[in-house]
């Protein structure tokens, strides 16, 4: 059988998705046996010009990690879209914005000010900040332009498949590879390497019955019982509004779900859905008492929508 051509690229990402691919361990040899890797900056030495030289549609599958944060990310998104038969938004950042998407609660100016002036470890009396173009004695130097708003991959180019997770689990990555190798690809737009259920549907922690919250607790100040549903104990858990498929790794490690697999099927806005589910189990009727309880949540938007602000109904803080 002819080998299929595989590319893996990171845009605004941490590299964890690439490492997750390597975490399939010795199965990586099976991937290498089935696929010709034609572009993979973290592992192999290919340059952008090598990709530019490829004919359109040359790559069979590109796994694109990372959000679209600057002009280089955007350029590579368009380039890899043109060169790939199937473009996969791989991992939370490409899928729903991910942790880099939290920058949508601030402006580029606020971020520059903090990073290049205010941080205690910064000494920058001339207030030098990165510029897209700098002229030096030898010629012009260029770097990409940072955008004000972080975008998901599908807000910039057409995406064929989505693989959620921060990062996707090696088990699910292996499932995805098998789907690709089998050639039996699901309909365009499908979420692959995840389940159709919510985290709560798949969570094995003990549930005692009706949930009633009279106080929200925080892991910094209270110790949860790791065997019992976190929500029942009053700890914020994104399980009710998060897609399953990760084998509830966080919950089984003693920490509540933070929502990296994104919204389950049919949900438009993960944050609003999580908020709705958690609000409805607050055990209070008086408006003042309800207010007292909800005020115990210190950071509502980032708590309910940690990974998906760029993919939400409202994609950034209002300017």
């Amino acid at each position: 059988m002819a080998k299929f051509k595989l590319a893996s690229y990171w845009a605004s990402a941490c590299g964890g998705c690439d490492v997750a691919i390597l975490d399939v361990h010795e199965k990586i040899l099976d991937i290498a046996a089935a696929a010709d890797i034609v572009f993979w900056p973290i592992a192999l030495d290919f340059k952008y010009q090598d990709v530019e030289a490829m004919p359109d549609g040359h790559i069979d599958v590109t796994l694109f990690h990372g959000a679209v944060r600057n002009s280089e990310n955007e350029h590579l998104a368009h380039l890899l879209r043109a060169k790939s038969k199937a473009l996969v938004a791989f991992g939370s950042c490409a899928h729903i914005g991910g942790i880099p998407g939290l920058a949508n609660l601030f402006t580029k100016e606020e971020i520059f000010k903090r990073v290049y002036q205010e941080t205690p470890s910064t000494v920058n009396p001339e207030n030098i900040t990165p510029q897209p173009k700098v002229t030096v004695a030898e010629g012009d130097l260029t770097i990409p332009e940072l955008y004000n708003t972080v975008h998901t991959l599908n807000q910039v180019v057409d995406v064929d498949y989505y693989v959620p997770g921060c990062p996707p689990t090696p088990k699910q990555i292996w499932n995805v590879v098998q789907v690709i190798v089998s050639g039996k690809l699901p309909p365009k737009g499908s979420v692959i390497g995840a389940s159709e259920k919510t985290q709560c549907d798949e969570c094995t922690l003990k549930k005692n019955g009706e949930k009633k919250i009279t106080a929200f607790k925080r892991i910094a100040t209270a110790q949860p019982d790791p065997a019992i549903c976190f929500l029942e104990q009053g700890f914020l858990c994104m399980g009710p509004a998060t897609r399953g498929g990760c084998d509830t790794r966080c919950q089984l490690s003693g920490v509540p779900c933070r929502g990296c697999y994104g919204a389950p099927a049919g949900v438009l806005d993960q944050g609003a859905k999580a908020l709705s589910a958690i609000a409805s189990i607050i055990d209070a009727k008086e408006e003042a008492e309800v207010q007292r309880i909800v005020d115990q949540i210190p950071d509502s938007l980032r708590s309910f929508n940690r990974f998906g602000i760029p993919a939400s109904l409202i994609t950034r803080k209002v300017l």
Partner: protein
Amino acid sequence: MTFEPKILGILCNWCSYTGADLAGTSRIKYSPNVRVVRVMCSGRVDPQFILKAFAEGADGVLVAGCHPGDCHYIEGNYKTIRRMALLKHMLADYGIEPERFRLEWVSAGEGDRWAHVVNKITEDVRKLGPSKIKKTAKKASPAA
């Protein structure tokens, strides 16, 4: 030209919608800025509806239901109280002014109260000006 706010009203069928109807049949004059959607109970109002309204260009959103204790499904509007209290925090984190979103109780007999509630949110939103939430155009260049 003065700015005319576009406000979405989501009203429960049994009290608030009937109250709004009463305002009409009683020929009470009030601002025409609220477009009404009827739901069976304010407990049906998913916070997604409100975010979607803002995302689609509403300048304000008004949710109205039966007074606490009067919900025709007994517990529905208690859920509304909890959800909307939490949603207000989230809207604030998004930088949306609190005056743009209100939760009000209007009974079937309170046509005058409905008119007052509508006038109040319309004036508050008019003072704030148009919503600054921008729609994210699909497949647009992020540079814009």
